[in-house]
């Protein structure tokens, strides 16, 4: 066990991402261990999404080292990174608009684990179909498999992104604002689903502005500000951290969240 813990699943060292003169990610270090659930918060424009883009290869780091199980991935393409075991959702509702929920998920299931050789296989095998089935059940979409994406309500689109990512059977799942724009009731639905994933042992990095969501799910919280990490630790410490309260939460929110956490600790 301790041996496993010394080898992080994901290790980021001195990661920088510049857009022109702007350091969207500034000298960022992070270790993620198997079974971790890391919550990333911070003001708008802090660089949270950019950090996920960097890890997933959508927008490669300007400099720094990123390793997955010891394999360097900082310069790899998104498809190769997916094959190595990192899968993600997007902040904006990304989907294959013309396809059904099932086909959307099938993309992850059929290509996400690898696609060797110049001439690809033409048919789907049983494992692919089973991965689709499993992902849809995990995200509570199994009854809507035939619906076409462009006709879906926001909640289902968010869940579909999650299902598509899960169908690749990721070692590390990156989730960008899964409940942005949802009503409190829907937030609870998503929370339940993510809790289910955590129980399954999925390792997760999670971005969210809805703090009750972030604090209740994360085992460790990281706060970004101007691309820099200004906090890393547990939820309690976060709410008492002067700088975090100052630049991000504000006194009122911090108090409210402290209450919520206390109530939860008493009730559960």
């Amino acid at each position, binding site marked *: 066990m301790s041996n496993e813990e010394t080898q992080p699943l994901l290790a980021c060292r001195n990661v920088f991402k510049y857009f022109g003169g702007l350091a969207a990610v500034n000298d960022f270090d992070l270790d993620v261990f198997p079974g971790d659930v890391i919550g990333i918060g911070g003001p708008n424009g802090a660089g949270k999404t950019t950090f996920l883009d960097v890890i997933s290869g959508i927008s490669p780091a300007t400099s720094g080292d990123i390793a997955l199980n010891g394999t360097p991935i900082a310069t790899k393409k998104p498809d190769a990174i997916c094959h190595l075991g990192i899968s993600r959702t997007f902040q904006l509702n990304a989907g294959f608009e013309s396809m059904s929920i099932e086909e959307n998920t099938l993309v992850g299931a059929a290509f996400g684990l690898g696609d060797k050789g110049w*001439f690809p296989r033409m048919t789907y095998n049983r494992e692919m179909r089973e991965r689709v089935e499993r992902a849809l059940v995990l995200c509570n979409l199994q009854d809507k498999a035939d619906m076409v994406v462009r006709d879906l309500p926001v909640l289902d689109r968010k869940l579909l992104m999650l299902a598509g990512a899960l169908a690749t059977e990721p070692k590390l799942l990156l989730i960008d604002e899964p409940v942005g724009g949802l009503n409190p009731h829907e937030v609870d639905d998503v929370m339940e689903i993510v809790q289910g994933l955590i129980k399954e042992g999925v390792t997760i990095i999670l971005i969210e502005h809805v703090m009750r969501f972030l604090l209740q799910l994360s085992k460790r919280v990281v706060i970004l500000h101007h691309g820099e990490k200004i906090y890393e630790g547990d939820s309690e410490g976060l709410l008492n951290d002067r700088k975090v309260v100052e630049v991000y939460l504000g006194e009122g929110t911090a108090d409210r969240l402290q209450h919520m956490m206390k109530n939860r600790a008493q009730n559960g």
Partner: protein
Amino acid sequence: MALFWKHRDFVIFAILLGVALAFPFMGIPRFILAAVLIMYCYATVVSQWNLVFGLAGIFSLAQVAIFAFGAYSTALLGRYLEMNLWYSFPIAGLGGILFSFLIGLACLRLRGIYVALLTLAVSQMMFVLIQTDAACSALNKAINPMSCVSFTGGSQGLGDFGSFGWRAVLGGRNWMTGDYYTMLGLLVIGLIVTYLITQSRMGLAFRALRDNEELARSRGISQYKYQLLVFGASAFLTAAAGGFYAAHFGAVGINLFGFPLLLFLISMLVVGGIGRLWGPLLGAALLMSADEVFKEFSDWRNVGLGIVVLLFMIFLPDGLAGGIDKLHKLAVRVFTRARTA
């Protein structure tokens, strides 16, 4: 009825194939038979173009250049190596794949309209290269010492390279029937290939990249690999169709690389329905018929085509096939509402 809609595509396919097979025996005038077989040829090209344009969503205009490449390859092989055309078709097809790969490679980092511009430039470049090829070629001097024909035939085009050979088998009156069935065979293969690719895992990758490239790549699809694959997969039958075209007419000309043919074929794609299985056939049938009408007003032919394309893009962006689908859905809705009311 429900059973019909479930297997709609197979039923339509079976009926059309039956009619097409019987067609030459229905007492049809020869000139119509000739037009229909050319329609098959164009429909084949457009069906392969549909893979790139409709299924993969890449705005390539290179398909007609690949078609012309196939026609010229067949002509050159037949004329200078005296190759039996039945051998040169597959060679032209493979050459077409290579040619298409190169174009796909050049387009890798380009998107949208820039792909259209680059591929159009390729066609124009081929056009000019052949047009300016005017030097008498020694190879042609060997064939006929009195003549001065350039290697590619330049702006005059090239002939004397053979045919399907049906005249020798079926005789002078019926050779056209042989050409007709040959083209029909090509079209049938073309439709089956596009259907299978659309249904396959590879087709899913093309559609995923078309719908959302960033998401597709994050789900493990290599844009690089599948762009090259769609350019390659769509090129074989396109170039082979070029070879068939050359074999049927016994001549190739520079107009194959020209803008009017490009406009004509892209009109078929738009009018029939981009990304629809039956789109290319519908479009080819309609435009070939319309062309017979517009022919009377030769100067206005391209203007007329341009207007037709414009009207479809504005009012029926999914083409005839899309329009029929919509009508069907509407009918189903009205029907079920009437029943439940």
